C-alpha cells in the first residue's frame, strides 16, 4: 500500500447493531478519500442496497450502476444516494460484503464524483457485484459521510468501515 494511504478512522458494529455508520469531522488535508467496508445488514434476504449520504444529506445525487449476479447483467440509474450492495441476513452465514468507495478531490470546489464497487459474499446460486458511478452536485467540501442500509434495515454486528485519506505527495 502506498505511503500516501492513511487510515483516518475505523469502526466495528457492536452486538446491538447500528442503524448507520457516520464519519464526521473529516479533515480537508488529503487529496482523495477511500472507504473500505465489510457490511452485512438485517434484511430478510441475501442482498440489500445501501446508500452513502454526504454532509448529512441524501439530496443532489445521481448515479448509474452496473450489476451482475452470476447469470444476468443489468444497468440502472437513479437520483438517490444509492452506492452499492451489501449482504442481507440470509446470505451465507458469517459472510460480509466487500465494499470500496473512492472519492477524488473531496475538499475541492467542484461537484464531487464518486466511484464504488461492492461484492456481496454469498456461497449460493447468485451473488451480486455492483459498480456504481455517483455524482454529488454540490461544491462544498465533504466533511461527513454516512453509510445507510437500504429500506430501513440496520447493520449487523462485526460490520466494519474504515475511512482512508490519500495524498498525492509523500
Amino acid at each position: 500500500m502506498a505511503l500516501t494511504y492513511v487510515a483516518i478512522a475505523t469502526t466495528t458494529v457492536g452486538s446491538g447493531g447500528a442503524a448507520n455508520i457516520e464519519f464526521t469531522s473529516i479533515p480537508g488535508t488529503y487529496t482523495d478519500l477511500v472507504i473500505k467496508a465489510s457490511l452485512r445488514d438485517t434484511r430478510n434476504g441475501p442482498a440489500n442496497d445501501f446508500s452513502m449520504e454526504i454532509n448529512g444529506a441524501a439530496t443532489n445525487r445521481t448515479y448509474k450502476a452496473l450489476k451482475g449476479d452470476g447469470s444476468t447483467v443489468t444497468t440502472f440509474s437513479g437520483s438517490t444516494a444509492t452506492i452499492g450492495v451489501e449482504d442481507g441476513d440470509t446470505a451465507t452465514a458469517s459472510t460480509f460484503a466487500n465494499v470500496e468507495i473512492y472519492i477524488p478531490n473531496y475538499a475541492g470546489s467542484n461537484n464531487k464524483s464518486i466511484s464504488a464497487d461492492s461484492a456481496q459474499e454469498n456461497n449460493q446460486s447468485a451473488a451480486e457485484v455492483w459498480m456504481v458511478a455517483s455524482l454529488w452536485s454540490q461544491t462544498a467540501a465533504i466533511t461527513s459521510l454516512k453509510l445507510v442500509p437500504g429500506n430501513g434495515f440496520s447493520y449487523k454486528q462485526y460490520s466494519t468501515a474504515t475511512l482512508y485519506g490519500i495524498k498525492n505527495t509523500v
Partner: protein
Amino acid sequence: MPTKLVVDCSTGVTTEVELTAEEIAQREADAAAYAEQKAAEDAAAAARAEAKANAEAKLAALGLTADEIAAL
C-alpha cells in the same frame, strides 16, 4: 431505541448515538415503502408462477412431454 455509530475523525472516537425522531421517522417510512414494494413483488411472482403452471398443464394436456415443455 435504535442507535447509530458516529466516528469523529478528529479524535478517532466512535460514539453510539440514539437516532433522532426525524431519523426514526425516515427509517419507518423506508421500511413501510419496502414492505409495500416487497408485497407487490411477491404477489407478481406468485401470479407468474401460477400462470406458468397453468400454461404447462395445458401444454401437457395437448400431449407435450415434460422435456418438450422445458425446451420451450
